[in-house]
């Protein structure tokens, strides 16, 4: 990796490469805003009936719940409880019961993470469906643009060499040793591929499966996901995975150099690691 004879400046910096097209950048920030509002309004909607089930319907006279959040009265006073797959946990302060001792709040998720912060299902739904449309529109625009400009084929769909390079890339990440190459690393490709081709389609389709109108015209969605209530559960689970993705994504941006990473997603230009071969169109 040492290049004898090159100047000091060229050693410390690779070329500035144009990495992100305007379509990638616009849709990226659109999704960032949409997912923020979709998450917080979605938790508001969940709070209207803080339980998740497997199957077509919700068991009131039988038990098919996989998650239930609520408050119970105990000898020590009210407590928040969360039951996941039959295991009950005390989640006072976070789930089921939150707020101060003087003004406890008996909601599934606390008001700090819902829109609005008070209980208002109607408004949660207005916000959720508004940003749902924008999210899907951005997905459609991104897909079209990425097919046309080659982003999909070049950067998103993992190829043989990416799979082959995966162990080395994982070892690099484990040592927090990040290569700023011209293109995404194998792990990056794989995670973006998972988001675009697994998580985003799943969350959109399970969302549509909860619509009685869509059920009439596309009953196969009910069969695909195993019922409306299972679809609702998957919708929630994918939300959790997207939140995890977001956390890892932000951590990686911070570790890999936040200014350079943010610059590439705002201006498109990305500073590569020293030793990256310059190509036509690069800047020094």
């Amino acid at each position, binding site marked *: 990796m040492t290049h004898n004879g090159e100047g000091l400046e060229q050693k410390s910096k690779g070329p500035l490469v144009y990495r992100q097209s305007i379509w990638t950048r616009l849709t990226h920030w659109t999704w960032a805003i949409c997912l923020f509002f979709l998450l917080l309004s979605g938790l508001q909607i969940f709070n209207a009936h803080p*339980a998740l089930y497997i199957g*077509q319907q919700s*068991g009131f006279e039988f038990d098919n719940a996989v998650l239930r959040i609520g408050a119970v009265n105990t000898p020590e006073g009210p407590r928040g409880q969360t039951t996941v797959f039959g295991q009950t946990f005390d989640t006072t302060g976070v789930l089921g019961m939150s707020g101060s001792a003087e003004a406890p709040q008996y909601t599934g998720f606390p008001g700090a993470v819902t829109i609005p912060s008070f209980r208002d299902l109607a408004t949660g739904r207005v916000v959720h469906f508004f940003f749902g449309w924008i999210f899907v529109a951005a997905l459609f625009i991104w897909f079209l643009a990425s097919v046309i400009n080659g982003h999909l084929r070049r950067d998103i769909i993992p190829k043989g060499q990416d799979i082959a390079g995966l162990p080395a890339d994982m070892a690099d990440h484990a040592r927090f040793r990040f290569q700023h190459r011209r293109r995404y690393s194998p792990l990056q490709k794989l995670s973006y591929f998972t988001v675009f081709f697994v998580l985003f389609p799943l969350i959109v389709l399970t969302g549509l499966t909860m619509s009685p109108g*869509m*059920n*009439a015209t596309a009953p196969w969605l009910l069969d695909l996901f195993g019922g409306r*209530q299972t679809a609702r559960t998957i919708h929630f689970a994918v939300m959790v995975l997207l939140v995890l993705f977001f956390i890892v994504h932000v951590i990686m941006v911070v570790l890999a150099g936040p200014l350079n990473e943010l610059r590439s997603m*705002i201006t498109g230009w990305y500073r590569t690691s020293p030793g990256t071969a310059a190509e036509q169109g690069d800047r020094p």
Partner: protein
Amino acid sequence: MSQIILNRRRLLLGSAALGSSVALSGCNQFDFLGQRGNPVRQAMEQANVLTYHAQRALIGDQVLAREYSESEIRQGMKPNGSTEPTTAEYSFLRMQDFAPYRLTIKGMVEREVSFSLEELRNMPARTQITRHDCVEGWSCIAKWTGTPLGPVLDAAGVKPEARYCVYHCFDNIQRTLSGDIFYYESSDLVDAYHPQTLLAYGLNDQVLPVSNGAPVRLRIERALGYKQPKYLHTIELVDDLTPFGRGRGGYWPDNGYDWYGGI
């Protein structure tokens, strides 16, 4: 060149600071969206209008909601909303087993008509096992028996200028200082004439109980639960929903929920 980079850097730092302050400050910033009539909220509500038109364009008017098998009826139909209307009028009818009950079709019709429960039961019946989806998120499968609404509307002769059915109900869902607020809902004529739209008087092979809307409730199977008004007494054909309630076409739509309800 260095000047440009410096400015970009400032821009990046500024936007990062802005983003994190929005993320950290919790969400009471967006509580204003809860104000009915707020212009930002009203703009966002247009997404529901888009959904309505998109679904009407995409979904055939006659396409049926899924019907389930007997084995999927695993529990009673969960009652929700009003479960026991307390008005004098309803109590009187209930005491007499709804013998004096009449369902009236009025408004933009050729002739106002009304039917007793006995007459409705003698009309061609349809039985369907369908899933009821509450706006809260839960679902419940039950068997509904009733007479399709379409032919009943035809008996009254719907005028061509009519655009909506308004469904008036007996139940005082909300009591206020200025009097009772009665439940009402409305639908377009596509939903009214849908083959699964029933004036339901039977539930799970029994007479429809009071908690589920006796003597007659409407079933609009391609919409959420609040579009299935219980304790129905009058259907009014209109070309404008603004004169009713707070003008948004139903008790829950008046309280900020989407009017269409097919999601």
